[in-house]
């Protein structure tokens, strides 16, 4: 099991990759983000985007999935997240794009009141052309090895 103490500043981890299909993009957008450029191919072609693009929130959800899988592979003692400091959708994600997420630990600090610790992470998502499509800076919480508060 990897605990809070096992995460070091500067550590980089490839969370994984995912190829976006048009079907899954439409399914997410129809349910949660039904704007024309996410759900209607003709309207999307006429929009500033020139074609269907994924909801930015969908791309974030995909990154969450990749993160959960990566944390499972490393058997991390994850304890959720209090939030995200910044999220930027820098380039559209289109059907058939393969996105790859890499995360870096920016700093870590223990909780003063609970048996957990925090890691501030910057996650960068690139497409198959090496272009950055999304950056996220957020906080992850992990259980401590000793299970005790400071």
């Amino acid at each position, binding site marked *: 099991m990897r605990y809070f103490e096992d995460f070091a500043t500067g550590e980089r981890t490839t969370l994984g990759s995912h190829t976006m299909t048009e079907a899954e993009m439409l399914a*997410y957008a129809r*349910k*949660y*983000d*039904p*704007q024309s*450029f996410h759900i209607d191919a003709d309207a999307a072609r006429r*929009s*500033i985007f020139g074609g269907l693009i994924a*909801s*930015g*929130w969908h791309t*974030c*959800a*995909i990154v*969450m*999935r990749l993160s*959960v899988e990566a944390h499972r592979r490393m058997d991390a003692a*994850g*304890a*959720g*997240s*209090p*939030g*995200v*400091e*910044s*999220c*930027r*959708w*820098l380039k559209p994600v289109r059907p058939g794009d393969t996105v790859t997420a890499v995360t870096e630990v920016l700093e870590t600090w223990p909780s003063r009141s609970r048996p957990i610790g925090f890691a501030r992470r910057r996650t960068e998502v690139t497409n198959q052309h090496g272009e950055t499509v999304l950056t996220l800076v957020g906080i992850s919480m992990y259980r401590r090895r000793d299970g005790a508060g400071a």
Partner: protein
Amino acid sequence: MTGARPAMDGTAFFDDLEVGQQWRFGRYEVTREEIVEFARQFDPQPFHLDEAAARESLYGGLIASGWHTGAMFIRMVAECMTPRVATQGAIGFDDLRWIKPVRPGDVLSVESTVREKIESRQRPERGTVKIESRVLDQRGEPVMSLVSLVIVMRRPS
């Protein structure tokens, strides 16, 4: 949607939005089935998937993925706000906080406030509007908050 200006039948452009302007909108009933379905697809952690495992977690019961709360928020925005504002999407958000767990049976709504208008020098036809939103539960308590950076078109001259 309440508090919308100008009139509900008009589209609000960048020029029409005022700092401090506030809207209340949306209604979203959170179901156990949807929490589990979203979690299976995007956030398969035990406290989002399985009631028994969730009871033994620090949350004491099944809770929605934070990204599911984000998805429910954007659904309410897409339904109630987007059709009334000349927006071309958002470039991102800052300061997203998952304040309180969202549980089956909760009923969510949104309160949004215009915080800042930023004109674009490179693209005079549009601007960026910082909109702070709070997702509230049926008790009026915030469960999530964030500041969205929304692209809004200028009124055509």
